[in-house]
Structure formats: C-alpha cells, structure tokens
C-alpha cells in the first residue's frame, strides 16, 4: 500500500479511474440524450485521466482548464476520451470531449487537494481516496436511480416505430406538441385510466381512514395502558407484520370466491386495511410511548375520561406521526399489486396497478405500458416529495416492511 502513498502515484491512478468513470458517464448521457453513437474510449480516457491526475498534484489550478481544452482537442483524434461514431456531428463530438475533460479535470483537482507531489501521509492519501469514492458514489447512485425513471417517462412519449428504430434515442421531438402525449390520451380515453385513478385514490384514502380508526385505539392501549398480555400483543403485531401476503392471499382468494366478494371494491377495501393495521399500530405505539405521560395524567386529574384524553390531548399532539403513518399507509395501498391482481377481474373495477398489469400484453404497445406506469408513479412521487419530511420519518419509525 505504501507505494501508492506518493503524490505522483496516487494522482495519476485516481485520475485514471475517475476518467474511466466520467468517460462512461458522458458516453451514456450523450447516447441517451441524442441517440447518437458514443462510447468511452478506454485508452484515451485513461491517458487523459492519468495526465490530469499528475497535473492536479503538481499544479491543481490548471487541471480544470487543461482538461476542458485537452478533452475537446483529443475528441477529434483516435485517442478520444469519448469515442463517437461516424454519424455524430463534429460539434457534439467536441462538446462531449470537452465536457468529459472538464468533468475529469476540476473534480480530480478537488480530490487531490492537499496532496503534495512527494510522499503522502496515510491520512492525506485516504482522504483523497474517500473523495474519489464519494464522487463515484454520487454518479453511480444518481445513474442507477435516474436512468429507469428517465427511460419510463421518455418511452411513454414516443411511438412504436421510433422505439424499434433506435432504442437509445430518447430525444424528444418537440414539434409534435401535444401529440407527444398521445399514449396518455389513449389511456384515459380508451383504456379507462381515469376511472382506475379514481378507484385507486378512493381505495387508498379509505384504507388510510379505516387503518387509523383501528390502529389509534390499539396503539394507545399497547403504549399506555397496563394489562396482562401487553407484551404478547406487542410481539404478535411484529409477527403478523412478517406473514407473507402470498400465504394469506390464497385463502382470501378462496373465501372471496365463495362469498362472491371478488371483483368488488368493497372486498378490496375490507382486505387492504388489515394488511396495514399492524404496521400503523406498530409505528403509532412507538410515537405514543415517546409522548410525555404527565400531560395525559393532568387531563385525567382534571376529569377527562380516557377516551376524551386520547381525543383531546394525545391525538393533537401526535399529528406529525399521524401524517407520516397516513402517508405510509397510502403508499402501501396505492402500490399494492398482488391482492388487486388476484381479486379483481372486471375491468370496470380495476385499481391503477391492476390496470397496468392488464396493459402487459403483446397487442398493446409498450409506450402505453410506460405511460400507465408514469400515471401510477407521478401522484405518489408528488405526494412523497411534497411531504418528504413526514415520509422519511414515517419510514424510519418502525417500518421495514416492503
């Protein structure tokens, strides 16, 4: 290890690795954005990175500008960092090279910050490596999360022939105007997605309300009241939380078939809350436990009954927890697939997830499938981003379910 701990070894080495990361990223970004042929040039990127890494140790201020210039110049030579196909215009090739060079130069200078040209201490060396890993991590995680969602949205805006012709071309032809949203128009017009959206919303809201009605008193009892069997109840909640849905779905399917509850929203609304009550109860009792009991006792002393204490003191105090539990339950109900898939066959009663499952056939073009996915994803994402604070809290408050 100690041989790496030298400015002129660590610099080029990290530069080389970083250049490979950046060259790949640039190639993928340009391919996805324009549909042209870009690929990372291993040798070119490696040489450029190693050079810029050395420069970053020797003259850190120069690494960025030199990277930009050198990247663009090398783009027209055989040792380009991002190799382009013959059909790519010169200026985009130069742009790709320049972007890659700049994205190698400046960050590598920042990574090698504090690294002298000579021998490095362990501390300095590891700090540089960690900065490299951090940069890599941001790119990596952003890519793996963003690419599928980008593909989902862009596919939904294209048509079948465009998709077959060049699967990499996600550029949008803005001249089509509203024609871009044809898949959405067809889904809402012919495939009844408006009604699915409404059904999903209705089912989710009802699930939230019913869940809260059941879970609040139960959670309060487990958190505050002393009774024989409290520990057992507390554990059973966790245990039920772990029973796989598919095990329950089979008998529920049989029972619903016999009772004629299949294909009814009523049946779905009956089942969904029970799958969420244990989660909600578990999350809420954790929160109730954290509330100071003295306030409630004061209420009791002043002559309120237990139920009034819950209604007038505990609930107003636990509004944030109720919000996050509601959000979480809403998310579970909105995203639920298995039960909807098994219990609903009648297209007039589909929820959104069931409706999307019905789109998965060879006759229906896949931009419709993706448009359906976008329709299902956007509301929950919007809700989630708007109330992210509650959501993160709710998720960490005892829900490892998923």
């Amino acid at each position, binding site marked *: 290890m100690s041989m790496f701990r030298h400015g002129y070894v660590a610099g080029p080495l990290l530069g080389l690795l970083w250049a490979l990361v950046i060259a790949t990223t640039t190639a*993928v970004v340009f*391919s996805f954005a324009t549909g042209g042929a870009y*690929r990372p040039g291993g040798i070119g990127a490696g040489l450029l990175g190693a050079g810029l890494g050395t420069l970053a140790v020797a003259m850190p201020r120069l690494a960025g500008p030199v990277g930009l210039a050198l990247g663009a110049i090398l783009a027209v030579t055989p040792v380009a960092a991002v190799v382009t196909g013959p059909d790519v215009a010169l200026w985009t090739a130069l742009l790709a090279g320049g972007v890659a060079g700049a994205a190698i130069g400046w960050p590598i200078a920042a990574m090698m910050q504090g690294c002298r040209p000579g021998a490095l201490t*362990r*501390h300095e060396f*590891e*700090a540089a490596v960690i900065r490299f890993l951090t940069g890599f*991590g941001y790119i990596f*995680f952003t890519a*793996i999360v963003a*690419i*599928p*969602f980008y*593909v*989902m949205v862009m596919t939904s805006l294209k048509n079948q022939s465009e998709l077959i012709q060049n*699967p*990499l071309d996600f550029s949008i032809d803005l001249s089509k105007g509203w024609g871009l949203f044809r898949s959405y128009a067809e889904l809402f017009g012919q495939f009844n997605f408006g009604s699915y959206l409404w059904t999903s919303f209705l089912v989710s809201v009802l699930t939230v309300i019913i869940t809260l009605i*059941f879970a609040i*008193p*139960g959670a*309060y*009892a487990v958190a505050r009241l*002393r*009774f024989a069997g*409290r520990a057992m*109840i507390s554990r059973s909640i*966790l245990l*039920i939380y*772990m*029973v*796989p849905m*598919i*095990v*329950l779905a*089979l*008998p*529920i399917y*049989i*029972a619903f078939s016999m009772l004629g509850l299949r294909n009814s929203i009523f049946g779905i609304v*009956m089942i969904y809350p*029970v*799958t969420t*009550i*244990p989660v909600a109860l578990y999350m809420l009792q954790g929160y109730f436990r954290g509330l100071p009991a003295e306030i409630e006792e004061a209420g009791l002393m002043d002559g309120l009954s237990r139920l009034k204490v819950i209604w007038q003191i505990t609930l107003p105090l636990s509004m944030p927890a109720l919000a996050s539990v509601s959000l979480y339950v809403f998310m579970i109900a*909105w*995203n639920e*697939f*298995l039960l909807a898939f098994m219990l609903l066959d009648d297209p007039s009663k589909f929820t959104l*997830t069931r409706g999307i499952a019905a789109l*998965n056939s060879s006759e229906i073009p896949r931009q419709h499938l993706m448009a*359906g*996915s*976008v329709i299902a*994803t956007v509301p*929950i*994402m919007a809700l989630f981003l708007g109330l992210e604070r509650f*959501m993160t809290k709710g*998720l960490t408050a005892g829900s*490892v379910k*998923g």
Partner: protein
Amino acid sequence: MTAQTPRSGPVPLGQSAETSRPAPKPPKGRNPLERREARLAWGLLLPTVAAVTLVVVLPLLAIFWISVKPVGLADLRPPTPVVSEDLRGRPEAVGDDATLRYRLRNSSQDQVITGVVLTDTLPEGLEIGDLDPRCALDGLALTCELGDFEGGHRETIEIPVTIGQGFADAGMELPDSPPGLTGQAPNVLTSGNFTFENFARVFDGSEFWGVLWVTLVYTVFGTIGALLFGLFAALLLDKSFRGQGVLRGLYLFPYVAPVIAVAFTWIILFDPFSGSANALLIQMGVTTEAINFFGQRPLALIMVILFEVWRYFPLSFLFILARMQSIDTDMYEAADMDGASPFQQFWYLSMPQLLGILSVLFLLRFIWTFNKFDDIFLLTGGNAGTRTLTVNVYEQAFAVSNIGAGAAVAVVIFGCLLVFSFLFFRFISQEEGL
C-alpha cells in the same frame, strides 16, 4: 389512570418474618382500577384483534386445512343443481291447455349431487293435471323429491295445466318467484377427505430443493446487497451540503414507486430485442449480440437479485443514515487528534455503532426478501431459474390449478417464517429496543 399500586415482590430483608411486626402484605389480585384499565385496553384493542383474526389468523388456519386437501381451482365452485321454469303452449284464454315445465341439470360434469329436492309455489288460478309420481302438491306448494343427480345429468319435469280465471287475470305470466332446488354435493373443502399428496408433490424430486436453493440465494444476496448499497449511500449523504435533501429524495424513488411500474420499466430497459441496455452495451463494444437478461439461467437470477438490491437499498439507506446522524461527532474529532485515518475511523468507530441497526435490518430484510413475491412474479414469472418459494405458491395454485399443492408450499413458507421470527426475537429483542 396510572395509579401507583404497591408493587408485589420479595419482601425487603429488614422486614423478614423474625420481627414481631406482621410484614405488610401486598394486596392480593388486582384492584378495581387496574381491572378497569385492562378492560379499557382490551376494549380499545378489540376491533384490531377481531379484524386481524379474521383476515390473518383464519386464513393461516385455512392454509393448513387446505394443504391436506385434494382441491383444485375448479373445486372452488361446488356442483349445484340448477333449475329454470317456464310455461309452454302459448295459452291465450281461460280454459287453454298449457305445460308448466321445469328444466333441471347438474352444474358439474363429474360429481354426484344427492337428495335433490325441487320446491315451488304454483301460481293461483291454474288447474293442475297429472303430476309426476315423484312430486306432491299441498295446496299450491309443489315438492318433488328427485333423488340423486349424476354428473352431467339433465332432466325435465312437465306438469300439464289448464288456465283458470285467476291466472288469466294476473296477466298470463308466471310470477317472479324462482323455484327452489336443493341437494347435497360433496364439497371437497369441507369433506373428511384428506391427503398428503400435496406435500408429497411439493417435496417430490429435485424441483423443491432447486426452488429452496434459489430462494436462499435470492434472499441472502438480495439482503446483503441492499444493505451494502444502503451503507454506501448513507455514507455519501451523511454530511450536509446543498442539494442533500434533493438527492435523499431522489435515492428513495425506487422504494416509493409502485413495484409494477418499476418492474415493467426494467423489463423494457433490458428487453433482448429493443431494450436500451442492450443497445448501449453493443454500442460500447461490451457484447456483440443482444443479451436476454431475464431469460437466461444464471443471468435471470442475478438480474432479479439486482432488482431487489436496487429497489430496497433506499430503505436500508434511510435507517443507516438516521443512525449515523445520531452518532456523536466528538468521537471523530478525538480520533482525528489521535491520528486515526478516515478508513480507520470508519472501521473502528462508525461500524461498531452501526452494527446494531445493521443486524436488525439484516434480519428484517432477510425475512421480507424471503417473503417477496411481486418482484420476481412481475420480472420473470418465476421462469429461467428464478422460481422462489413464494412464486411457487402462485405457480402451483393458479398455473397448475392445484390449490392444495399451493397451500402446502405456503405451509412450508410459514414454517420457515416461524424459524426466522424465533431467531429474530432471540437476537433482536435486546437490540434497538424492539
């Protein structure tokens, strides 16, 4: 009311029996306040307990019952005798002859229905002619004892009638009262017919062990992968900078989005014929021909594991981040002063602090990944060597139409779950205050 009652317990040493004063005794039993509190608690819990019993405990018991039953998908609709009634002969006036006809059949093609009885209330104002020997008329109430119906049996009972004034006044129409028809059909779900064939089928041959192996590989690697990715992501975001909130929100997307949406996106992204991933790989020269990501034997399992890691790393990331942010920074400063390098600080300071949440997450995620059904079902349908136990339940019950065998697999899953939760409560209850 949280009244402080004297705690029962060992009598303090100073007040042992040798002193002449009688030792103060703790009150026996529970006082009325405690009883009231317990009653209230159970009252508050009752709705939840009832609902959960109905939808979780009953189905679990049902699964055990079904798993020893020879029941297929078709048996869910038990055979019933079916009857339809009409009036033939087009009577137009009083005194016309007509025929009251009952057409009966067994809805099942192969099962016997025993003791079929037809009951009907005849409309007023009809003169009844010769009755079928099996039928009896009491006033207007018609009862026919028809005996047993073989599978696929059909028959017709005709009663000649003459129209009377009362019937003509009522509009020559049969009233809207459908005739009653009862019969006993053997319902395989409630019969005393048991079999261990389902379990024999499930454990039969190498298939089961293959499925179990796939399940274990999927669960272990999916869980560990999601934990490692989550740890990495948490390390990235464990510092405040502009845009940290945005990135945190973005990194949660895979978990928050509906599974069906992201699963289909993956399928389209990795499509062997027109998927972007293949086009990209070919363009970059990684491969010369398209790869069938979800259709080849070892690759499909790897892809499914990657999907699991991708979808659930946000969850571990969130928990680990929450734990990290509660670690005191003083410790790191002290370590810095003592010359600990960043990796040493991570390994010797952060990791021991994170071990608790990591093990909780591992066990919980292990159980949940083991239970996972939707993801694999949507991605591969359990083909190409990705059939896990949960997918096998569906496969047996609905694709092979053998509900009993599906239930038997479910029982196996439940057994595994019991083992896991035993381990869970054994190792975790001290940790993290669960």
